[in-house]
């Protein structure tokens, strides 16, 4: 029996990306396999690691815990959508580069999306708040110190305004 396919109207990084997928397609797999947006990484695929975090109508969610069909009509922002329109690094990406906030980079897309939304809601976090902002994401390499520094640096870049 061939499985029924459903139409999903998704907007990804501001562009309409209509999909035809089985109901059981996870949003993470829809982004990676159906749309070829492999910037969203999958680590645990059960909600624990945070690597797959994307913004759904602006709010961070685990794309591995959402069915693509369930978010029909909504806007998804992936790490590919965080660069500036001219292709240069966005403020959080720039801060990660400056502060050595990544080593292997596997966890990085999830941190970048989470922090982008976190700084939008709280543009000048305290050190404690900066730590709390990334507490739901796992990194096996860095030891987190430079990631927290990158949160604080990204807040500074944000305060300086667009360059």
């Amino acid at each position, binding site marked *: 029996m061939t499985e029924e396919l459903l139409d999903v109207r998704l907007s990804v990084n501001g562009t309409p990306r209509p999909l035809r997928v089985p109901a059981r397609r996870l949003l993470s797999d829809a982004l990676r396999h159906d749309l070829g947006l492999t910037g969203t990484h999958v680590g645990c695929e*059960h909600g624990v690691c945070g690597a797959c975090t994307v913004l759904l109508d602006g709010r961070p*969610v685990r794309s591995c815990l959402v069915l693509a069909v*369930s978010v029909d009509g909504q806007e998804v922002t992936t790490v590919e959508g965080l660069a500036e329109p001219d292709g240069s690094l966005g403020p959080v990406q720039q801060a990660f580069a400056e502060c050595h906030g990544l080593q292997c980079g596997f966890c990085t897309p999830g941190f970048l999306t989470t922090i982008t939304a976190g700084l939008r809601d709280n543009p000048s976090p305290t050190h404690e708040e900066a730590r709390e902002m990334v507490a739901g994401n796992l990194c096996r390499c860095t030891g987190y110190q430079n990631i927290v520094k990158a949160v604080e640096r990204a807040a500074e870049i944000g305060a300086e305004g667009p360059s």
Partner: protein
Amino acid sequence: MKPAPFAYHRPGSVAEAVTALAGDPGAKVLAGGQSLVPLLSMRLAAPSALVDLNGIAGLDLVEVDATGVRVGALARHADVLASDDVRRVQPLVPLALAHVAHATIRNRGTTVGSLVHADAAAEMPVVLSLLDGSLEVEGPGGRRTIPAGELYVGPLESSVRQDEVAVSAFFPALAPGAGVAFEEIARRHGDYALVGVAALVDGASVKAGFLSVADIPTVVDLSGVADDDLGEAALAQLEPAGGIHSDIHATAAYRAHLVRVLTPRVVRAAKEGT
């Protein structure tokens, strides 16, 4: 693909959702999916159909009046936690919600979903039980209200029937002069707790609710117990009430130790809040 195949329904109303559930005994409700999707992906659950509530308008309400807080089935943990009105009327709700998973999970997971899911390690079932709240459900025969005391029947098992949709939950307001407190011990903030305790002190009445101790959320009455004896008094009631469980995360002996330490601390904090 990780989940097994299932039929997908996206009803536009609760009545349509109930019809879809009643038409297929293997169908399950999908709310935030933060508990169900991992179960699907690990194939610990393989429902024949999912009835997705996310297309139903009006279910995301968070309503507050002097009698308490009503939370709709699509109100995300994050929305309930962010409400100043909720905090004012029943502060125990945000005190406990702050410990439910991480912010990213709270953006999608629903408070009502966590009440139905009935995980003994979850915070909100204990809060609903301690406050004597209730769940409003709709089935083929109409609506009924399930008091918290009748909601939890076993591990991961609530008395919500397969063909019923939980429409909203009601958390009664904090009485004037009463106090509440919440604390839990988890390996990392946001992880499921090894033990968690909520307390409600209202005049001479002292009650405490425990998560991750027994198989279901458990409330014990500690009225009249001297402060120094609170931990032992709680244990004396918890042990016969279903036993303290051991699992990969903690032994029963360690959990008992945490009950001894946390109970007096949380009750004291609730008294200070009165």
